[in-house]
């Protein structure tokens, strides 16, 4: 199962229950961490993020099985999660600004990386919400500009501009510290 591609696994979701179950478990193993991280960061509230996280995979499961080819499953999952997060923000007054998001701690061994991580988290507060989201999707979710554009539903040129602006600003802020390391 681990050797199968995302697309193969996606197709298996339309098969009988046992195969569907195994395929879903493998997809979940591969991508749940990133989706969980995205929900926590975007929604802020732990309980709401957990609900949206579950809803993302249930929605994905319910819409699976069509004949369409799945070229980029992580981006597809992120798109579902993003829609649900924004829907939550529109409906509930308890949503929090993106700058108040909960950024999960990471397992970082080196002291330098740990310190840099802290500074980046703080510096991210200084860029706009769109720039930050595009930056995080690119840097942490390894999405291409095209995938980010599809996920955020904006032109690629806009994504490129956001990411370049965000990186330029964050790097500029951190440059004294980067030079020291």
């Amino acid at each position, binding site marked *: 199962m681990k050797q199968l591609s995302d697309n193969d696994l996606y197709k298996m979701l339309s098969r009988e229950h046992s195969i569907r179950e195994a395929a879903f478990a493998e997809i*979940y193993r591969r991508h749940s*961490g*990133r989706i969980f991280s995205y929900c926590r960061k975007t929604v802020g509230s732990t309980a709401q993020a957990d609900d949206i996280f579950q809803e993302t995979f*249930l929605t994905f499961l319910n819409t699976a099985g069509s004949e369409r080819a799945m070229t980029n499953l992580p981006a597809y999952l992120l798109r579902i999660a993003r829609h649900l997060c924004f829907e939550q923000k529109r409906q509930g007054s308890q949503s929090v600004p993106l700058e108040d998001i909960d*950024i999960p701690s990471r397992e970082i061994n080196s002291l330098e990386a740990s310190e840099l991580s802290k500074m980046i988290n703080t*510096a991210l507060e200084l860029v706009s919400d769109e720039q930050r989201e595009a930056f995080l999707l690119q840097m942490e979710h*390894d999405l*291409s500009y095209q995938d980010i554009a599809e996920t955020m539903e904006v032109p690629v040129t806009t994504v490129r501009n956001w*990411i370049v602006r965000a*990186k330029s600003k964050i790097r500029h802020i951190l440059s004294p510290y980067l030079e020291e390391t």
Partner: protein
Amino acid sequence: MKDFEHHAFSDLIYLFIDGEADDTQKSALFAALANDTSLQAEFQSAMKFHTSYPRLTSEDAMPPAILSCNLFEKAGFNPALAVPLATAVVAGTVRSGLLSSIGTKILAFKSVLIPLATALIGIVATAGLMNDNSQEIKLSEAQKPETNSAAEVFKNSGETGDYHFQNGNEVNFQKSIATPVFKKKNKVLRTDNDLQPEILAENPVLKDFSSEKKVSENADISLLKNSEHTFKTSQTGNKTIIFQPILIIDTVENKVEENVTSYVIYTRKLGTVALFPTREPGFGGYKFLDNTSLGAMYSMDENHGIVLEAGEEVFPVFVKNESGEYTFTNTLQWVTAGYRLTASPLTMLGGIQPYTQLNAGYVLSGSGPVAKGLAGIQWQPFKNVTFSGGLETTALFYKRENTQKVGGKVGYFYGLSILF
């Protein structure tokens, strides 16, 4: 024009590093890099940032095992398939159906426990505040009133108000004596039903209180011959005073004044539980004075005080300086003024006093205004020393691109106070 070109090449650096530059853009970038040293430095810096960035791996943010199990159950799948995704310890818990159920219940119960704990704290604090007006006075054997005459007075009088008899001989007064309220300069302020010295001296009824059949509603029960009363004296705890009809006022003033506390200096050590937006405190290492505050309080009376406090604490933030550059600041130095409300000692908890404090002030490093809210308890094991501890929340106001933002911090503190 040159600036524009440099700016465009800067953008190309990021496109190249992200693998988004096409061949034409790559060629243009390489040509520019060959002749532009500042662009080369920028390229190196961008590359360093890119390679240093601690990327999130899938394992870094795995959802909790119980959440995964619930999801698999909702999807109609075997929850055990979600178990290998969790950590070994948690997996051991959720693998069993019973334990999984218990774990879920504990998580659900968490939402009830927190309000319950909050309510309990509120009850204790309220009890402490109310304790101020419910002191109980018991007379020693030698100080008991003449049972028959006094008993009749109190039993039959509809005007005796709050005091009453218990077990025939033992007198148990409640709310019968107004607690003195201390004002500035340590003077005793008497309440309406308290009596002035001259009234005591000149009023024969009050002088011979125990022989009277009727007691005025305004009469103070403390005038009972050889009665005993416990006063609260600011933060120094209780003071027992023996009352005699003629000497009562002098006794009160002498005994009370020596125990009034007006000035307190204190120091607190601050700890961090969480920062909002989430960031990790402690970058750059701790200095000796980090997370320490020094304050002084002037007690207006036993419950109310004005505080002035200064401190330095870890609060990572970027501060914009006059030239528009952002500087990373790990610790903030602040000065605040505030108000403290202290409840009376809780006798059932060994004299512990709950208190709450609100501070507002300014960050000296220029971030902006800062506000603090404290809720804690203090304990006075010695005459002039108090230990304290509790929870503290901090709100830091700062500007980001002309938008006012608020950063928050939840922490704890423990401290030492010296009373004068």
